[in-house]
């Protein structure tokens, strides 16, 4: 379509909407109300389940995550990550190789203490079987992880490898999705345009019921989602 007919299509659709609604262009009051709803983004009903105190939120997150076939291991601090990962991989008979997000939040992990683990950083490559990333937040309500993309947080690490390990701090766990959005908005300035390219809400490993309605894990995304929950 030419630019002119593209503009025509746009105008026709918008005026079609107005005609159907039996009005002209939206009034200032209408535009104002819509802009207000967007600007102030008031919360709708938030389930009681999402409004617990933090201890209960952490416990709920773990329970819900286990329900959707995540595995969860609690560790005291980032220093414990290399050993936890090495043991996890050994327990599954997986090679001791890891692709890690070049995330500054993960830079304190002392990989050198575990030299048998081969650790490289960057976006996921086809041959990478295991990835390790951080998270932006986690939503206790449904055991959901929130990961956001960025220069140091390639999205492909969340999807290409068969096993995805997420390092999650206790203080990243919030009650409901609205709390997670508020955290994202708080750092909006750090994303060009106000949002990252991708926000992934991840609730358990990949799965499908497309073969005779039987649920199988690991359709296209990771078959395993392992959460290292950091903090006392």
């Amino acid at each position, binding site marked *: *379509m030419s630019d002119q007919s593209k503009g025509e*299509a746009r105008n026709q*659709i918008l005026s*079609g*909407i107005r005609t*159907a*609604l039996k009005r002209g*262009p939206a009034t200032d009051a*209408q*535009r104002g109300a*819509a802009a207000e*709803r*967007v600007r102030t*983004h008031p*919360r*709708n*009903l938030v*389930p009681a389940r999402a409004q617990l105190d933090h201890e209960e939120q952490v416990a709920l997150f773990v329970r819900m995550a286990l*329900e*959707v076939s995540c595995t969860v291991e609690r560790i005291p601090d980032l220093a414990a990550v290399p050993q936890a990962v090495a043991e996890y991989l050994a327990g599954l008979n997986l090679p001791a190789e890891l692709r890690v997000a070049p995330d500054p939040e993960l830079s304190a992990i002392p990989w050198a203490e575990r030299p048998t683990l081969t650790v490289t950083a*960057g*976006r996921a490559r*086809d041959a990478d079987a295991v990835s390790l990333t951080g998270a932006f937040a986690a939503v206790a*309500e*449904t055991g959901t992880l929130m990961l956001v*993309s960025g*220069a140091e947080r*390639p*999205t*492909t690490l969340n*999807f290409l490898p068969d096993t995805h390990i997420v390092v999650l701090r206790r203080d990243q766990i919030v009650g409901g*999705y609205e709390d997670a*959005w508020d955290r994202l908005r708080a750092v909006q300035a750090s*994303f*060009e*345009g*106000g*949002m*990252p*390219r*991708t*926000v*992934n*809400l*991840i*609730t358990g490993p*990949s*799965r*499908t*019921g*497309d*073969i*005779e*309605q*039987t649920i*199988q894990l*690991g*359709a*296209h*995304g990771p078959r395993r989602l392992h959460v290292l929950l950091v903090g006392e």
Partner: protein
Amino acid sequence: MHSTAHSFPENSRRALENERLQYMLRKSGTGFQDKRRRAAERLPEFEDLRDQGKAIKNHVLENLDVYLEMFEAKVTEQGGHVHWCRTAAEARDTITEICRNAGAKTVTKGKSMIAEEIAINDHLESNGFIPIETDLGEYIIQLRKEPPSHIIAPAFHVSKEEVADAFRAAHTELPKDRPLDEPRELITEARLMLRRRFQEADVGITGANLLIAETGSTVIVTNEGNGDLTQTLPKVHVVLASIEKIVPNLEDAATVLRLLARSATGQEFSAYTTFSTGPHRPGDVDGPAEFHVVLLDNGRSALLGTEFQEVLRCIRCGACMNHCPVYGAVGGHAYGWVYPGPIGAVLDPALIGIKEAGHLPNASTFCGRCEAVCPMRIPLPKMMRHWREKEFEQKLQPPAMRRGLGVWAWFARRPALYHAAAKMAIRTLGRFGRGKGRFASLPLADGWTRFRDMPAPEGRTFQDLWAEKQRGGR
């Protein structure tokens, strides 16, 4: 998509006789219904959330132009492009133009009902592109060259043996003696074969469950991860969405999302709910270089301000068809077009015309289960009735039925005549039926008596007996 909706009676007869299909339908049984009920019972606020979901969407529809313009501004601000398309043809042309400009060859696709609506795959193929469905169910039906039979489980009707046959026929480079009996084996093979396609793709097309005005984001709700690989790996990401998918802000999205997975599969939340906003940012090491949103009208705006407006609240969860006894008997293909089940009975006539899709709103007993489970409280039976009103006005119904009902109404509006005629007719029918208690066949009633006996009436009308009682005293 080409429609066979006008052949619904024939389609459904064949569906009832299709043993494979019937086996699959029975196997599924009440699975989806039980899961949805458990999820709804587990969340005490579920009913209130349905009311809120309805209110959000009603508000959006009244202000649809405003929110769409806000969305466009935000998308553009973040380096994306919005394309407004009035018709399926415009959407097809827009998408092929984007693919051509990208020098594309392989085009991967996430699941999208709008893509079915505009029949984009055939169009891409005839323009020299290779479209590859990546959702496992869609991939299966693409190989089998058939349309989806359910809006969230497109290969619902396909048995695992049939999947294996399709894979063997298509994946000829793999060893012929490999086992493909278990779902695990089938999924591993699909994952392997499609992984290569994901990496090869130049353009990835996804649908959108939601568009968000606040942020200019598009949202997909999946479980496999294919939608995410489709939109992250290629250099161009195209989102194809109809205009009514928009919500104002992230909080409104959260409310709708609380309803969606629970209503569709009984999950608390889908494995992957992804918000995509614009192309990759400077410094990102993955993600697409171009982000396009193709906004499609294709008859939606025409429903605004009509008695069908409420159908635009639909969030495509599939709960209605999961609970419909007619869908449960004949499956999705019988409906003959993109949207089956109760939502199809209302939407298909709106999009392809009542003459073509007229059977669909008629093939309902108005049992009301669809409306009872719709997360957005869409009054589906009421709108099916509105379609029947349109057919009545346009005289599209079978003449014999119209005449019969007309005769009935003529008498019913004349009580004295009605009671006199009924008294006589029932005495006659009663005399014929008295001995056996039932009729195995009745003239003009073949539709009934082919499968059922017709019980005999008692032989006198109530009004006749009551009047007699009143005259005789107590």
